């Protein structure tokens, strides 16, 4: 049986029907279906005499109001960060305590000073632990986002922003991928598929990384906890808003110069409001949050072990001083009554710290850091931050993981102080503090804007099917991050901050 016969018949039928209806066949068919539905609807449904405004409509009158819409959206976002930051303090304390305890316990299982002890205590517990600590804050943020989504508010947010997006030359549909990007940029970039027009789609993909994903949260949380404990929620909010602002500015520029052309119109559906169910919200939160835990157990663990290795080897470098002999001398001084016990302890601790620092500087990582430092110094960052940012390319949490490992290795004292306190204490060789509130804020800005993680770059490649766009995204975000951070840091110093 020749199937061409079928297609011939189809062609004939379509032409025949077009002649009869003076319209495309598919249009007529769709009309008939709606006719059928209408018939059923009339027979099965009795409508009220007067249509009342539903509760949903009443809420929408306020929420979608031309004047109030955007302020309400901004307020709800602020509230979300405020709640997240305030409520997560307590559980984060528990995780921190548990981790210190674990570090001390595990340390005892291995011979003191062995490479293995260092790997477990400094590399794994110090590195991965510093990331795990932020699990409560991430779950809480996802919890709040799930409530906004399940209640139907997020669709309103998209609607409210649509008007605004159009003004800046972006498609209303671009807003949903942006909101998804707040969880993780990868689904955000993938969601751009719903945008039909290629130029709108590419623009949205390219600016999506500015939506601050959950992986960047640990970096902010660490720095805010250490330097702005009072203003946590507001500061966090301002970083997210900065990301959104940068996305808008860049989108505008891309649409104007890279992909010029008009924006397609778009009709958006507004589902009725719904009371979110606890079960639904928890499932949503869990689905997203668990990805973070999985990442901590795999890529971040591997990253931290790598950083630990690079930071510890060569294991016994050539030191500038013979530390062992100097320590021995200090002990002999005590024995011969030249100094007191306290003085001896102090000089031995000093020697050990100095040795640890020198070891780190002579490690592979120290060398890498020295290469990076000139680039990041104008932003107020030292080589450790530079190395952390370098590692952040694998996954943004690794910025924190790397600092955790570096500081655990670099300090010789027994008790493991939280990373937060260690960075507060760290100084430049001239004794000035490395981390001022200004540096901390600059670091947050840089982390927000610079290169998307490896996975995001991979997805951009897959979604655009060429290396041109991922490479472009990596390049322009990093350049932009550097410029904005430079302005923030140097500008801040000029007006006397930090």
């Amino acid at each position, binding site marked *: *049986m020749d*199937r061409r*016969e*079928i*297609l011939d*018949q*189809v062609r004939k*039928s*379509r032409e*025949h*029907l077009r002649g*009869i*209806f003076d319209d495309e*066949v*598919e249009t*007529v*068919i769709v009309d*008939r*279906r*709606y006719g*059928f*539905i*209408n018939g*059923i*609807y009339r*027979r*099965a*449904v*009795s*409508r*009220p005499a007067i*249509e*009342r405004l*539903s*509760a949903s409509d009443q809420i929408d009158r306020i929420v979608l109001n031309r004047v109030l819409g955007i302020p309400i959206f901004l307020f709800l976002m602020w509230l979300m960060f405020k709640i997240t930051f305030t409520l997560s303090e307590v559980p984060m304390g528990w995780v921190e305590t548990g981790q210190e305890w674990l570090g001390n316990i595990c340390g005892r299982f291995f011979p003191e000073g062995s490479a293995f002890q260092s790997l477990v205590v400094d590399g794994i517990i110090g590195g991965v632990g510093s990331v795990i600590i932020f699990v409560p804050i991430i779950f809480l943020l996802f919890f709040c986002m799930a409530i906004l989504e399940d209640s*139907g508010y997020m*669709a309103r947010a998209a609607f409210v922003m649509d008007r605004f997006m159009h003004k800046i030359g972006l498609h209303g549909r671009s807003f949903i991928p942006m909101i998804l990007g707040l969880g993780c940029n990868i689904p955000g970039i*993938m969601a751009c*598929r*719903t945008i039909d027009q290629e130029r709108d789609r590419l623009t949205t993909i390219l600016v999506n990384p500015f939506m601050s994903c959950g992986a960047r949260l640990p970096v902010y949380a660490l720095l805010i906890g250490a330097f702005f404990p009072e203003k946590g929620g507001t500061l966090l909010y301002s970083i997210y808003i900065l990301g959104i602002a940068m996305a808008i500015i860049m989108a505008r520029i891309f649409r104007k110069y890279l992909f010029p052309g008009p924006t397609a119109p778009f009709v958006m*559906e507004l*589902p*009725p409001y*719904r*009371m*979110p*169910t606890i*079960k*639904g919200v928890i*499932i949503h939160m869990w*689905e997203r949050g668990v990805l973070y835990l999985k990442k901590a157990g795999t890529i971040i663990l591997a990253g931290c072990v790598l950083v630990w290795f690079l930071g510890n080897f060569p294991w016994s470098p050539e030191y500038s001083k013979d530390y062992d002999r100097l320590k021995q001398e200090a002990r002999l001084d005590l024995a011969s009554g030249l100094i007191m016990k306290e003085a001896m302890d102090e000089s031995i601790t000093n020697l050990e710290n100095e040795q640890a620092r020198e070891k780190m500087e002579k490690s592979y990582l120290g060398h890498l850091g020295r290469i990076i430092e000139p680039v990041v110094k104008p932003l107020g960052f030292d080589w450790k931050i530079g190395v952390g940012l370098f590692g952040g390319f694998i996954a943004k949490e690794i910025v924190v993981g790397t600092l955790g490992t570096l500081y655990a290795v670099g300090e010789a004292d027994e008790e493991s102080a939280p990373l937060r306190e260690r960075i507060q204490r760290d100084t430049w060789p001239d004794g000035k503090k490395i981390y001022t509130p200004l540096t901390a804020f600059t670091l947050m800005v840089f982390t927000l804007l610079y290169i998307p993680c490896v996975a995001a770059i991979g997805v951009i490649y897959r979604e655009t099917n060429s290396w041109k766009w991922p490479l472009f995204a990596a390049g322009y975000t990093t350049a932009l991050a550097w410029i904005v951070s430079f302005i923030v840091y140097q500008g801040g110093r000029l007006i006397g901050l930090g």
Partner: protein
Amino acid sequence: MVRKITIALAGNPNSGKTTIFNNLTGARQHVGNWPGVTVEKKEGSLRFKDYEIKVVDLPGTYSLTAYSLDEVVARNFVVEERPDVVVDIVDASNLERNLYLTTQFMELGVNLVIVLNMSDRAEESGHKIDTKKLSELLGVPVIPTIGYKNRGMDELLQAIVDVAEGKFDGGHVTLSYGEEIEEEIRKIEELIQRDAGLMQRYSSRWMAIKLLEGDEEVTKKVTGEK
């Protein structure tokens, strides 16, 4: 004896499909990707009486055309994997628009159960839906549920099992496209029915309508292109 049933959950976006899926499967969910594409695929399972029911959550769509990836994924699953029952979740407060997808499933000739979700909301706004009448007119079981209150799930499961066992007979309701179009559908159907290869997998009426609509995917199936 435990019988295995596979059901597919379909429905418009925002019809409360996810809530029903969560109610049915609870924590026994598995998230993956549809083969070959990056559309998310959710599966879960549950026990009901003597049945082991596998639930596949289709992407939320308004229709089953070949225009968007989501619709193609949903359609291909139903056409090619042939679930025992398709559960079409309909937002009761938005009945007219939601029924469009329902007509698409009716045309495919699948075993259908309609869930009239959020039936409380429709009533609040003063719309009284006569479920029995609706079921009669469509020729498929219609189960009112309130997803967020977890209401109506047992009735739904019972209906699924009944339909899977062939215990529901609603007569066969066909959406008629009017004399002129029906005439052409018949002509095309006749030719399709002579082709054993095509008849094996698809309903001839559905295929004929899709061809008339100029559906690219179905046209490719006929020409044998991949």
